């Protein structure tokens, strides 16, 4: 693949993920409760609502953290011994 194509692809990925993060931020910050939604207010109190939000965030990000730590550890252990193989194909 030519270099500019590769860079363009990388740029596209970066832009897309940036836009996705922005979209998430926007929709997360300005929720609209739909009047037809009969079940949008079931939280018992403000504290309960916050607790659910916090525990959702905690449970969601913790596994990524664990895997990230494991990958870093593996990388650290392998990179000194990794050596290129004489290539027989592209």
């Amino acid at each position, binding site marked *: 693949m030519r270099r500019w194509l590769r860079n363009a692809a990388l740029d596209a990925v970066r832009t897309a993920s940036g836009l996705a993060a922005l979209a998430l931020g926007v929709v997360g910050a300005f929720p609209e409760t739909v009047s037809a939604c009969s079940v949008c207010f079931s939280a*018992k*109190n403000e*504290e*309960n609502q*916050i*607790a*659910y939000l*916090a*525990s959702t965030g*905690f*449970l969601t990000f*913790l*596994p990524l953290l*664990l*895997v990230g730590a*494991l990958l870093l550890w*593996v990388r650290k*252990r*392998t990179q000194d*011994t990794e*050596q290129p193989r004489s290539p027989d194909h592209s």
Partner: protein
Amino acid sequence: MQLSYVSDGPDKVVDIRGRMPAARRRQVAPNGVIGTLLFVMAEVMLFAGFISAHAVAKTTALSGWPPPNQPRLPVEETAVNTAALLLSGAALAYAYRVYLRDVRRARVPFLIALLLGCFFVAFQGVEWLSLLREGLTVTSSTHGAFFYLIVGCHALHAVAALIVLALQYRQLLLDRLSPGAFAGAQVFWFFVVGMWPVLYWKVYF
């Protein structure tokens, strides 16, 4: 953490027990260490589930948290116990470092780690007995139920880890403890030790 498989050049790995001239397969770490690490990751998620449930249950309790008519948890005594457990972890880490240089000198710190761990579990048992006598039971409130559930689950892990450590101590006395096995057990004991302060903070306060 050190390799238990002595690296002999970049592509050749020799098993420390000398039993098998392992083929040229590069090992990231001893199997036991990786297996234990993966298991610990699953365990961390188990406790994360308990902690989240506990955090949510706090906000839905009927009459405040902790309930006014229930005994308080022994925060100060447990602080002492927490210190004992942390010391035990440090002692084991020291034992491993010494072990890599001189196997025999690791015996004393290993024993200290083991005894401090046993002290932690025993102290917890005594605490439980007094709490039960004061009326905090599994069914008395969700507060009590979560206390026994989370702390009990941690204690079960501690007991299992101590059994493994005791078996390894015997191997150590016989000079038969392999570094891979020691490193694996060490990972698991660090998990038990490292999990505790988090649980202490979340459950007792």
